[in-house]
């Protein structure tokens, strides 16, 4: 390490990879996994979300997994929590929708209404 | 001694170690630490080699070896049974465990059985205080012990290592 700049570069790179151990997070993205979720493709959705967050260079986002949320027809389901705001539940997720939601909800702080559970109630 | 540790191979290793540390300041302790690992003890014959090589009086080396409890003049038994008598373990009854072991094996603390099978020791705190009271037999750790556990543990080691691997 010949300079402080080099140290800082390593610091930033590695911190992004391991900060989920200590992060409180401005947003928490919760992906429902479990048998039904996985059968509907939840794992790909999860990995896509992680990839898009990485590409967007976003910091401070916690991505967690949970078990079955109960309504299997709606899988894959992704919930986004932000302190002081009601949670947003996105249903019938696909890899494209996942990328769109990251860009819109997490970067621009705009909920993608069309994909939420609210707009899909019959 | 129950075992022959003064092998040609061991002395070769010792010479390599001496060469490695010869030129640093304060070489004696690092060399003694490694010698204890190589031979399992630092008897007179080993001390003599170190004395000749480093030009340190034998009496001085003997004084250092006998001062530190990790350096021994004779090798330990096949099974080193060490009961931790650190404060946390002591407060949870470790002394009674040690007394029972001494009685059952007929080996006093700090000594080795005549057949070289067991050595019994009371150690200082080994740092596993959350499992108190603790004893180790070689590298196996037994924790959260009560007096009734001792008989079973000792029975596991009632054969020598040769008998077990045969």
């Amino acid at each position, binding site marked *: 390490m010949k300079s402080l700049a080099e140290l800082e570069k390593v610091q930033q790179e590695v911190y992004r990879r391991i900060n989920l151990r200590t992060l409180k997070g401005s947003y928490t993205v919760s992906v429902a996994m*479990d048998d039904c979720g996985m059968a509907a493709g939840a794992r790909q959705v999860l990995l896509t979300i992680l990839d898009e967050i990485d590409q967007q260079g976003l910091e401070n986002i916690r991505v967690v*997994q949970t078990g079955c949320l109960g309504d299997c027809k709606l899988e894959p389901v992704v919930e986004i929590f932000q302190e002081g705001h009601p949670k947003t539940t996105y249903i019938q997720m696909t890899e494209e929708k996942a990328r769109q939601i990251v860009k819109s909800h997490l970067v621009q702080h705009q909920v993608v209404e069309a994909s939420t559970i609210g707009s899909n109630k019959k | 001694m129950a075992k022959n540790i003064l092998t040609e191979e061991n002395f070769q290793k010792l010479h390599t170690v001496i060469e490695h540390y010869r030129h640093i300041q304060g070489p004696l302790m690092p060399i003694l630490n490694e010698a204890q690992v190589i031979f399992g003890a630092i008897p007179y014959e080993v001390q003599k080699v170190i004395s000749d090589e480093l030009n340190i009086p034998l009496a001085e080396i003997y004084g250092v070896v006998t001062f530190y409890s990790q350096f021994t003049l004779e090798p330990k038994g096949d099974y080193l049974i060490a009961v931790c008598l650190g*404060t946390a373990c002591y*407060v949870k009854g470790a002394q009674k465990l040690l007394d029972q072991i001494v009685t059952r094996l007929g080996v006093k603390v700090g000594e080795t059985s005549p057949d070289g099978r067991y050595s019994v020791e009371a150690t200082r705190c080994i740092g596993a205080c959350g*499992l108190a009271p603790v004893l180790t037999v070689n590298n196996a750790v037994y924790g959260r012990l009560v*007096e009734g556990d*001792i008989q079973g543990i000792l029975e596991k080691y009632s054969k020598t290592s040769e008998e077990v691997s045969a």
Partner: protein
Amino acid sequence: MSLFRSHVLICGGTGCTSSSSDKIEERFKELVAEQGLDQEVMVVRTGCFGLCEEGPICIVHPEGSFYSRVKIEDVDTIVSEHLMKGRVVTSLLYRDKLAPPEHQLATSFSEVTFYKMQHRVALKNCGVINPEVIEEYIAYDGYKALGKVLTEMQPADVLDAVKKSGLRGRGGGGFPTGIKWEFAAKTEGPIKYIGCNADEGDPGAFMDRSILEGDPHCLIEAMAIAGYATGAEKGYVYIRAEYPIAVKRLKIAIEQAKEHGLLGRNIFGTDFSFDMEIRLGAGAFVCGEETALIASIEGERGMPRPKPPFPAHKGIFGKPTVINNVETFANVPQIILKGPEWYASMGTEKSKGTKVFALGGKINNSGLIEIEMGTKLRHVIEDIGGGIPKGKKFKAVQTGGPSGGCITADHLDIPIDYDNLISLGSMMGSGGMIVMDEDNCMVDIARFFLDFTVDESCGKCVPCREGTRRMLEILDRITEGKGEMEDIDKLERLAKNIKSSSLCGLGQTAPNPVLSTLRYFRTEYEAHIVGKTCPAGVCQALLTYVITDACKGCTLCKKVCPVGCITGEVKGLHHIDPDACIKCGACMSKCPFNAIIKK
């Protein structure tokens, strides 16, 4: 590179390792690979999490699920349920008994009461990073302080910062660290050394071990900073041989630091060079005393030397040396980064910052904690420690190891700091805190500590060599029922002489446990001497084991007795021969009917 979505952190401290946490790590790695998850799930061995009572501990992030007392069989469940399906395995979670009933499942590590009540400064990285990967230390601001010091600060600025922070030696002496560094800085060179005392000999203390096993780089960084501030280019770490895992991790850390140019010549492209060497101890408690430590490094018997000259003027190999404890060093990088005012804002007027304590003995949550100076003892024992197990009554807490004393229930509301503990007849020591309950005999405890110091005495000076031995003989007689009232006077006189005339700290503090127990538990001594009884039921010579008529004749006691002193037929009342009985207690612990009592 894609981000791992889950990190499984497994405690790799000595306590959990001896409960096979290394095998647990292997099994996780095996199963994660089998399931094809090795690009998504990172399995990491960290340092000690501190809640040793509940080990082995595994935490899955980012959820923060806190799995405790994990067995190898449990790994399969955690992988298939939690890692593959996102279903947290609630049956394996730690039960946070200190939290309100609805929140007792430890689903989030940061919310666990044991940790919420702490302020982890020296332990900041323990349980968070993999100590064998330098990049993880760097990720959490590692070596930033060293960089700042070398590029933005003069040595005098560093000394100033450490002095302003109010940091005092955490090994037990409590000497102001900044002033010690200044002494060395002002002494003529050119060769000077930085020494680290990692000999941690106090039984029941494992603070330094955890820092070395969990975050070895913070020591390297701090010693380099000390070198810059004082004009030293070499550091020696004297570490006890009984800590093999700590030695291994420190060796790896030094290698990695060298590879990355953070140790060696021209660090960060400046003129400053610093190198480090490890020297192993060999099982002598007295080598924790700084002049004995120096003698040991120099290849001699670990015998202390008179002070003055102090090591800061004449130390290792005769050169000016700063010797500090591991925990003292662990605080330095953050003092530099966050500023001395931040550090001084914590604690009391004369004891700044935080302190790591090793809680052990009769306490529910045994393990490692770090709290602000000034915290009340009661909070530590009842709240963080979770109180005394099995509903027993608190009797005393021993601080300061063999150099310290006991604190009774009357003084639990004292704020913890250096001066308060001394006024109570104890001392801070290195941080070992052993809790005792109604079943511990205080005379026996005093004898235990004295036995330790007699064994560890180097033998150089008469008061310690002869005096402590005479005190031990008196205590032996008292615990065997052969004491006399004048023994108490003899103990007090001997103690005074030994304290005032011993050469080093070992002898000067050896009588403390006796004086302290005499001060607060005199009646217990009198019971042993006059009544020839041991009220706590500990001192063997004053007890008899008896089988009552609750005995059902199951013969379990007879089978487990090591001296064959129990007679009896199947289904008949058994009997212990009191002359042959060695009072080991094996029978009492095996009896399923609680038919055996101690009188």
